[in-house]
């Protein structure tokens, strides 16, 4: 397995070198963190300040893009508090890359080329492309853009999901997506799910032609979520507003607010080139490539033994 991991890293680097994408490294430890209420950062306390361990290298990579780096990629060790399970290890390896002039559709094609190239004949089906709406309609029988909280909750229960407590609208969508739609995706193929509801835009642009959806995609290998990508939001004002909204939601849910990355906002204000970016879980990719069913099988030492 150590050898397989080493081979995978070589293959990824070869793929990007052949395409003229530059490998970069950015800090793991920063004065600002991810505000996303669904992600908890680990922090490091120094005598003079508390610093955040990055949950993805997105912000500093965008600063490089704004400074004129051109196409870049990074293979980074990232950290997310409390995420441990079959497909999660609190410290894991993320491959993240940005392509200037790409939109999310063109980037999906490149992700497909990378993963298919690595998978060889492990993937017997052609890749499927589904909008989020279509995926939910086909596999869960509900329209995610129209249904209100009550309808989503009823549908989830009708699908056999017995949930303790109440969820917000996006919580129900996440539940149905992870427990009904993802397991129904074909096991021996890749599925791209694109055009997420605008409420789940994260750092993606809202689609100019249909404001109900965001230019965001995810890649699944079978039911395993492998990658998340955006046609990147370049608007500093909107980005600042999303950070503030995240922190308001964090405070109302009793979570600690996170320092907003003003360097990123300044870089966006300077001008982020039109680009698309994606983050892909290298450990999960290795699980899929080698047929493992627990992330610990692809790590030298998992969280329990770290």
């Amino acid at each position: 397995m150590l050898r397989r991991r080493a081979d995978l890293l070589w293959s990824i680097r070869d793929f990007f070198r052949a395409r003229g994408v530059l490998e970069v490294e950015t800090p793991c430890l920063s004065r600002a963190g991810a505000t996303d209420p669904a992600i908890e950062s680990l922090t490091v306390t120094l005598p003079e300040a508390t610093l955040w361990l990055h949950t993805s290298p997105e912000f500093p990579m965008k600063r490089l893009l704004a400074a004129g780096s051109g196409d870049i990629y990074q293979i980074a060790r990232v950290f997310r508090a409390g995420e441990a399970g079959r497909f999660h290890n609190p410290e894991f390896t993320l491959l993240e890359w940005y392509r200037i002039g790409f939109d999310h559709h063109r980037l999906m094609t490149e992700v497909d080329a990378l993963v298919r190239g690595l998978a060889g004949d492990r993937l017997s089906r052609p890749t499927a492309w589904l909008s989020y709406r279509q995926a939910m309609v086909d596999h869960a029988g509900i329209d995610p853009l129209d249904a209100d909280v009550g309808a989503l909750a009823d549908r989830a229960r009708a699908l056999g999901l017995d949930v303790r407590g109440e969820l917000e609208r996006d919580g129900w969508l996440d539940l149905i997506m992870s427990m009904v739609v993802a397991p129904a995706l074909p096991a021996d193929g890749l599925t791209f799910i694109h055009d997420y509801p605008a409420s789940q835009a994260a750092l993606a642009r809202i689609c100019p032609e249909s404001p109900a959806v965001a230019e965001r995609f995810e890649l699944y290998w079978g039911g395993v979520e492998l990658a998340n990508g955006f046609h990147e939001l370049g608007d500093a004002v909107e980005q600042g507003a999303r950070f503030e909204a995240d922190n308001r939601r964090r405070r109302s849910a009793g979570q600690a607010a996170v320092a907003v990355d003003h360097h990123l906002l300044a870089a966006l204000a300077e001008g982020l080139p039109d680009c698309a970016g994606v983050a892909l879980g290298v450990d999960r990719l290795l699980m899929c490539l080698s047929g493992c069913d627990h992330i610990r099988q692809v790590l030298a030492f998992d969280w329990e033994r770290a």
Partner: protein
Amino acid sequence: MAMYSTNEFKSGLKILLDGDPYAIVENEFVKPGKGQAFNRVKMRNLKTGRVLDKTFKSGDSVEAADVMDTDMQYLYADGEFWHFMMPESFEQYAANEAAVIDAMKWLKEQDMCTVTLWNNVPLSVSPPNFVELKITQCDPGIRGDTATGGTKPATLETGAVVKVPLFVNEGDVIRVDTRTGDYVSRA
């Protein structure tokens, strides 16, 4: 009261849900990269034995069930209750039929059992993995037929009926695996 967060969920943990004690059988952490985290939990109702699937929002807490496995000696049955004793304290506990239903046919006086207490009341009883019991009734073996691996039913002193090899006779003491109900050997 003690509470467990979903982060502490693992198989074997005992929790209280809608007034019933449950043991967690399986716990799976499910989380979309950019979304709500869940714990999908398979759990067994310790009163009914029924296994069900429930989903919790990660970070939520549930009450701990005061459930404890203790080793006790089986003393006797009085027709209504089965009586057990803690060997060190001599403290006695009476279990009702529902608690001993699965163990009943293996219970021999003086044997050590595992008694699961919930709020200090026996909830279930597990017999030892192996028990030695006397055969009280079985047909005589047919001579010369031992090589074919044939079996015959034998009734034991506790009332259990197990399949035994043909060479085993009434009055013999045999060793039985209570998890499968299989004959192991002559004792």
